Each structure stands twice: as structure tokens, then as C-alpha cells.
């Protein structure tokens, strides 16, 4: 099996939107706990102990989000204490914790998504829906480093001509503006030439191909089917109110019947799916390595 990030972009997209979709739109505390734990685990498995600052930021964000709710919402039956003549309730606090778990969990998922879904894969997925927009996007992506290189050349030339001094702020800014102006004129002209060249070479007459070839293999198919099946079970549990919850006036979190339990387990399996794959791959890698 390939590592998780090597799966087909479409399969990856379906999985990501299934996981984050349930996390964002359901709000059941059990599922939120699964989502948050899975997201942190997944991020940690992929990145190890790197990105410590992101973790600190997310912890701080969690605290702020969790504490914001009891300060603005005074619903709930269990009053913990009174602040400025306003009751601070346990229910509102727990609601805040739940919302914070949802938001921070989704943020972690999207952090991993940004790592896995590189621009190349996004273009592949976007290209199936809208080839034109994908083209605009991919050309813009390519232009950014090109402009940076060009800006360096222009500013070097300006310096050599003695037009550019860095010790004076006003002069420096003026110089930068001049470079920007030159770059944009050049970029627009160059764009027109690129466009004409594209037309001359037959842009728009056939299907656009990708730089890297993505193949939707049997493994991708199985992965997508498993994802959709697990999502279906969870969605069925949510839709039939087997995973119902209320916070106000009293907390009542229900996981009722077999369907409710199955829904929670299915969501857990959905969240852990890539971690299984990654673990399997790294174990096999280690096993093969030791044989060499």
C-alpha cells in the first residue's frame, strides 16, 4: 500500500470533506472529541515534534474559545458563580468547550490538508470541475516566483544605474514603487505574449493534461468506498437523532441504540483510517529495511 498522501487527490478530497463535514455540522460532543483527538494524532503522526508553536497557538485558541461562551451566554440551569450580576453557568462553559473542540479540531484537520493537498493536487481536482479556473490558478502560481526573480533583476539594474539608495526611507520606498511599476508593466505585456503563444500552440483545442499523472487505482476505489460507507453510517445515526444532544437548560448527551453506537464507531474508524495506512506503511518500510 502507498503512504496516505500518495492516494489519488479525488479520494483524499472525499475523505477530508467527510471528516471535516461531520465535525463542522454535527456538533455532538462524542464526535467532537473523536475529531479533535484524531486530528491532533494525525498531525502529530505526520509531523512528529515539529510545529511546536502551532500547538501552543491552538491550545491558547482553545482556551479563549472555551471561555468566551460563558461570558456572553447565560443560559443553563447550573449556576457556578455570578460575575457582574450575570450568572456563569456550567452548561454554557461546556458548550464553549464543545465549540472550541470543534473549531480547533477542524483547524488541525485543515492544517494537515494544506500539507497533503499540495497546489498540484488541488489543481488536478479543480481541473475536473473548471479547467479554465484551474488554468488561471496554475498560471498565477507559476508567476509568483517568476515575478520575484524578475524583481531582483530589475532592482539590481536600478542599483547599477545609481537610481536606488537604501539609506533614505523615502528614496527606498520610491525605488520599490518604481520596481513594482516596472514589474507590473512587464508582467502584463509578458502575459499577453504568453497568451498569444498559448493560442498559437492550440490552447483550448484539446483536454488539458497534468504535469504529474494521477491514476485512480483499485486501492483508491476501495479507500473511497470505505470512506463513503463509514460516512453513511455516521450520517444515518445523526439523521435519525441517535446521536442527539442538548446543552440548555440541562446537558443531555445521548448515544441511543445500536445505530448511535455504530455511528460513533464508524466516525472513529473514518478518522483513524489514514493513521492505519501510515502505520502499516511505516512498519512495512522498517521491515523491508531491516532485511537489506
Amino acid at each position, binding site marked *: 500500500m502507498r503512504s496516505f498522501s500518495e492516494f489519488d487527490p479525488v479520494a483524499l478530497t472525499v475523505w477530508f470533506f467527510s471528516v471535516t463535514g461531520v465535525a*463542522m455540522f454535527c456538533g455532538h460532543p462524542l464526535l467532537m472529541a473523536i475529531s479533535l483527538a484524531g486530528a491532533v494524532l494525525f498531525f502529530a503522526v505526520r509531523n512528529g515534534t515539529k510545529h511546536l508553536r502551532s500547538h501552543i497557538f491552538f491550545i491558547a485558541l482553545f482556551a479563549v474559545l472555551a471561555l*468566551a461562551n460563558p461570558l456572553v451566554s447565560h443560559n443553563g440551569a447550573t449556576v457556578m458563580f455570578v460575575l457582574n450580576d450575570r450568572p456563569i453557568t456550567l452548561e454554557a462553559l461546556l458548550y464553549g468547550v464543545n465549540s472550541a473542540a470543534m473549531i480547533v479540531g477542524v483547524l488541525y484537520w485543515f492544517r494537515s490538508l494544506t500539507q497533503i493537498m499540495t497546489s498540484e493536487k488541488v489543481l488536478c481536482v479543480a481541473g475536473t470541475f473548471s479547467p479554465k479556473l484551474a488554468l*488561471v490558478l496554475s498560471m*498565477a502560481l507559476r508567476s509568483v516566483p517568476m515575478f520575484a526573480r524578475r524583481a531582483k533583476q530589475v532592482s539590481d539594474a536600478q542599483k547599477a544605474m545609481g537610481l536606488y539608495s537604501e539609506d533614505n526611507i523615502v528614496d527606498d520606498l520610491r525605488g520599490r514603487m518604481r520596481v513594482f511599476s516596472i514589474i507590473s508593466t512587464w508582467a502584463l505585456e509578458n502575459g499577453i505574449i504568453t*497568451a498569444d503563444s498559448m493560442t498559437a500552440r492550440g490552447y483550448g483545442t484539446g483536454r488539458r493534461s497534468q504535469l504529474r499523472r494521477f491514476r485512480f487505482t483499485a486501492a483508491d476505489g476501495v479507500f473511497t468506498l470505505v470512506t463513503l460507507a463509514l460516512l453513511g453510517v455516521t450520517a444515518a445515526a445523526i439523521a435519525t437523532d441517535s446521536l442527539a444532544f442538548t446543552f440548555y437548560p440541562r446537558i443531555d448527551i445521548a448515544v441511543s441504540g445500536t445505530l448511535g453506537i455504530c455511528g460513533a464507531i464508524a466516525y472513529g474508524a473514518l478518522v483513524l483510517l489514514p493513521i492505519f495506512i501510515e502505520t502499516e506503511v511505516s512498519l512495512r518500510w522498517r521491515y523491508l529495511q531491516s532485511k537489506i
Partner: protein
Amino acid sequence: MIVIRSRELRNVIRVAVPFAVIPAITLAGALVFDQKRHIIVSLAVAVMALLLFTAGFERKTTGSRRLVIVSVMTALCFAGRFIPFLKPISALTIITALYLGGEAGFLVGAMSAVLSNFYFGQGPWTAFQMLAWGMTGLFAGIFAEPLKCRKWLLLVYGALAGVGYSFFMDIWTVLWYGEGFSFKLYLGALFTAIPYTASYAASNVLFLALLAKPFGDKLNRIKTKYGV
């Protein structure tokens, strides 16, 4: 797929979708679902607006020159997002819309949001950012004539667009919190976002004042030279 042949009908639809259809869906969603589902409705509306626009764009035969100009402007917007505190995205989007039309403005705004989020982090808010910046461009394109004639009007539009962007994104912040639309939370979010709102408005005004004329000249020159 349905192709709308009449030009007037197309224009009517283009204006009616942002002004009538989207608010109608939002209202219906707010009435039919309970408040916990507001976020689904809002996200669905945002995605649908983007899809509608994309579908219209995809069906038209846009020349490759126009397409490339849009991508160049997108890249310039994106490059500008690395400037600390000041963000020229809206300003450049507005300038593009003034000289190349509302559709190009919408595309530049929406595409810059996607592009820069490759670096700043994609998320469910990407759809909202796309819509917010796209609308900034679309409206600038609709009111292009008066905005081009009077500079103070353009600066006021820039400031309004900055404030509007912040207000629009805060709706999303509040909805994401999951309690439906709570006005108190919204005010709180607006209050904490004041420095950002101010920086958006200030950078729009600044960049429009600095760039509107020279950039407009450049775009006009390209238009007359190559007939885009």
C-alpha cells in the same frame, strides 16, 4: 446544460443572483432550519454562489489573453499579501474590476483568496473569503463609471470595501461558533477585529490612492495596444 442566449437575461441573472436569490436562500434557510444549521446554509450559499459564477465563466468563450491578464493580476495580489499589516489585495481587485469589468474583478479577488491560502492555510473560510473579495471586485465593476471619474468616491468605496470585508468575515466567525447568529457574539467579534478592520480600510485607501492612476494607465495601455 442550459445556455442562456439573451444577453439582457444574462445580465439580469448576474445581478439578481447576488442581490435576490442568495438572500432568499439565506432567509429560507434561517426559517426552515434551527439555528444550529445556519452554518450549513451559509456555507452552502457561499459555495453555490461561487459555483454559479464559475459555471457562467466556464461556458463563455473567454479569450486566452483575458484569462492570462486575470492570472497575472492574481499573482500580483498574492505577492502583495506578504506585506505586513497592509493588504493590497482588495485595492488591486478593485482596480482590475474598474478597467477590465466586474467579472475579471470577481475572479481576481476569488482566485487570490485560494492562492494565498495555499500559504496561509486553507479552511472552510476560504469559500467566504473568495466570496467577499469576489464581491468587492464585482461591485467595483458594476459601478466602474462613477468610480473612475471621481477619485474621492473610489477612496470611499475602498474604505467601505475594507470594512465590509471584515464585517462579512465576522459573520462567518460567529456562525462557526455554533450557536446560530448571536448578535452579542457578532458585536464582540467586530470589536476584537477593530485593528484588522482599520488596517483593511487604511490599506485599501492607501493603495488605491497610490496605485489607481498608474495601474489604470497600464491596464488601459494594454487594452488599447492589444485590444483585450
